[in-house]
């Protein structure tokens, strides 16, 4: 009984701290908008209208949320194993390249085979791109952060080369490949008032699988043990390196899937700079949700709304959409200091509880 009483306020704090973080971020952004001479409420109004104002807007938001959520799952999976994968962006681009190649050059297959082949190719490319950092980390103990950041730059430049060179499309004025074959396109769920592909179903499906894997399987249990205390896991005979390599490769595969879904669904062709940094968006979201896949879905929806809504805000209210970068920056800073916030909010709840008892 006693332990339950002690636990409750802590749990409250745990669920509240993401809300806390978002509120503080909004407050800070409001001050900034106010300082630039605009009214924050106007800005938020246009942002909300732009993101959720009508069903077309809502669909755009969901479309943006799909690749972000997949990137978030990728981050969550590796961080559950105790590895911080910051190379999602590179793996995502590589996955997109892979599925574009499969979508362009494999011919004669029916859609129900061709599409999965393209998606799997994308995942393989993503995993492959994570293989070199993983091998260097496990075998040589190379700093993953540094190598991942470099791999991200390489992937970005490689993408430019691919769409300007070997895979250049017939229209020489656009840095893009040709449109993939019809059998490789993600089918639409809705086409009016706005197009929405089955990407959203893929994302929800992956969330369920991921949650189930992490919490309900023996292998997921071992993965969490590696992430929580790799020394204790090693002392228990769990093959920590094996799990960490596996998690990094699977994380790369999920990032590759994010790239594939974006390319085969939204654009149906590979553009240069097609990703506005979805891979980086995944990081704060996964952390905000402490790796919970359903929390990531919500976070991705929020980030998608920010991206879509800010365009409307810029068009209608003339407030720079760069404010989204500020919001993300503040979020990341706050997440990095979330231990302080958790502590403070648990103190507040404890005090309230005490006052209530007295």
């Amino acid at each position, binding site marked *: 009984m006693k*332990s339950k009483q002690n636990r409750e306020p802590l749990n409250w704090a745990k669920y509240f701290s993401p809300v806390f973080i978002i509120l503080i971020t909004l407050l800070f952004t409001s001050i900034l908008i106010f300082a630039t001479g605009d009214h924050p409420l106007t800005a938020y109004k246009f942002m909300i209208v732009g993101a959720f104002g009508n069903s077309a807007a809502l669909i755009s938001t969901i479309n943006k949320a799909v690749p972000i959520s997949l990137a978030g799952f990728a981050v969550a999976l590796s961080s559950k194993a105790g590895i911080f994968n910051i190379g999602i962006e590179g793996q995502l681009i590589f996955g997109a390249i892979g599925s574009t190649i499969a979508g362009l050059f494999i011919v004669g297959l029916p859609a129900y085979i061709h599409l999965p082949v393209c998606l799997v190719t994308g995942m393989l490319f993503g995993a492959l791109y994570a293989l070199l950092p993983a091998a260097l980390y496990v075998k040589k103990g190379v700093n993953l952060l540094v190598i991942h950041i470099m791999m991200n730059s390489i992937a970005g430049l490689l993408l430019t080369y691919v769409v300007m060179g070997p895979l250049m499309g017939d229209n020489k004025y656009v840095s893009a490949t040709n449109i993939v074959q019809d059998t490789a396109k993600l089918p639409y769920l809705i086409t009016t008032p706005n197009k929405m592909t089955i990407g959203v179903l893929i994302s929800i499906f992956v969330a369920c699988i991921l949650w189930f894997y992490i919490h309900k*399987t*023996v292998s997921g*249990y071992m993965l969490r*043990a590696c992430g929580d*205390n790799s020394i*204790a896991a090693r002392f*228990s005979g769990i093959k920590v390196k094996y799990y960490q390599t596996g998690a990094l490769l699977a994380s790369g595969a999920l990032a590759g899937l994010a790239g594939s879904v974006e390319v085969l669904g939204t654009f149906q062709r590979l553009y240069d700079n097609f990703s506005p940094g979805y891979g980086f968006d995944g990081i704060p979201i996964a952390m905000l949700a402490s790796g919970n896949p359903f929390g990531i879905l919500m976070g991705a929806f929020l980030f998608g709304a920010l991206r879509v809504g800010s365009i409307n805000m810029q068009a209608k209210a003339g407030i720079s959409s760069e404010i989204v970068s500020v919001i993300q920056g503040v979020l990341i800073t706050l997440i990095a200091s979330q231990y302080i916030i958790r502590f403070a909010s648990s103190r507040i709840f404890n005090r309230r509880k005490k006052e209530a008892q007295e």
Partner: protein
Amino acid sequence: MDIAVQMSGITMKFPGITANDNVDFEVRRGEVHALVGENGAGKTTLMNILYGLYIPVAGQIKIGGKEQRFQSAIDAIRAGIGMVHQHFMLIPSLSIADNIVLGEEPRQGIVYRRDHAAEKINELCAEYDMKLDPKALVAQVSLGTQQRVEIMKALYRQAEIIILDEPTSVLTPQEIDELGAMLRKLKSMGKTIIIITHKLKEVIDFSDRVTVLRHGKIVSTVKTGETSADEVTNMMVGRSVQLGGHKTDITLGKAVLCVNNVSYHDGRIEKLKDISLTVYAGEILGIAGIDNSGQKELTEIIAGIRKLDQGEITLDGKSIKSVSVSDIKEKGVGFIPQDRQESGLALGMSVKENLMMGYQRKPLYRYKKIFLSKAGMTKEAQEKIENFDIRPDSPDVLARTLSGGNQQKVVVAREISNASRLIVADQPSRGIDIGAIELIHQKLVDARNSGMAVLLISLELDEVMLLSDRIAVIHDGRLMDILDAKEATREQIGLLMAGAKTKGGGGCEKQTK
């Protein structure tokens, strides 16, 4: 009588706990005063307040009758207080003289007069009848000598009151005797000494009075001559204590673990040198030795976590030297590692999940082979929680929220209940309350009574002597001798711990010859 230290109404709070609760503590000039209590009773906190490291929430400190408000340790040192911490604050690469004068060097202009420092230290040594070579490097002298250096550091700063935090924990029995003689000498010179310890037995001979702390409160202050170690232990815990478990007579079985001529080095340091020993079914083999003599490496090699350089290890006659950790577990070896938080538990996971860690292969924990069986996990966890009295009794709380003793019980429960042949326990009672120690002792003895082999490592000689059937003594990675626990004396073991004599070990081949 002349009062050297008077602390009254001291209260100190940390988030969530009250470490000292309205404590009145008094030390007379020229006495050796032992401050005893269990881990977490608040004795170190109280002394840190006296030394100016913490500022109390409430209370008053008088030194020699004069009220003091220390803002930092510097104020306390000025008031004539010196403290020797449990973990020495010395710089190994500097000489003894340099360490002693550090911060208060004798100088001429900007030049450090090393010769003056050495002279001064020689004078002090002569005065207090201590043996120290000012030119020797700290890295090259024993822990006992390092402790003398720390005491000399306090004397050099003209301390009148010297606080020693757990001074016996790093010493062999002989060194403890030497420490006693040194403290008596300091006392005769009019110094006041406060010893913080949870092992009263070791200081009962040379302390005048004892103050017992429990849960941050003073229980009582008594004259050492009018009490006994057992009585004080009962005061510390608040009830009578039965350590060591109940051993039953059991005939020794065959050899379970054989360690033959094992050598190991970590980096450039030789950790184990040609170690041989055998543990039989139905016995507890205790390994005595001062800290860092290679015990940790030996246990981790047996558990398969480290791979040995030379030699052979067998379990039930079969080599396990290149067998994986999980296969060794499967052969019935339980391993209680030295540091539960570092290598025994995943603190962010639930008690239930920690209780199965390393044994997740077992069908009991699985549902259709790849899924976790929640029912199996919960049932098993509840059984262990009940058997080992783990509190709170919920399988779903995070391991992080448990107290040290209960965290240790989780590790012990997991390893003992899954082991069938051998238990390797590295300091199973380190830093936990007496209630938990009692239980863990009983469980280790139960395992022995049921015919398992137990290899016990402890830095506390009392624990080794209490539990073991045979005692192996290790010094600097070398096995000194193996003694029968019934016949061995503290002095004998102490000499071996200090490296007095060498003799081979007791590997399997040697014993069958």
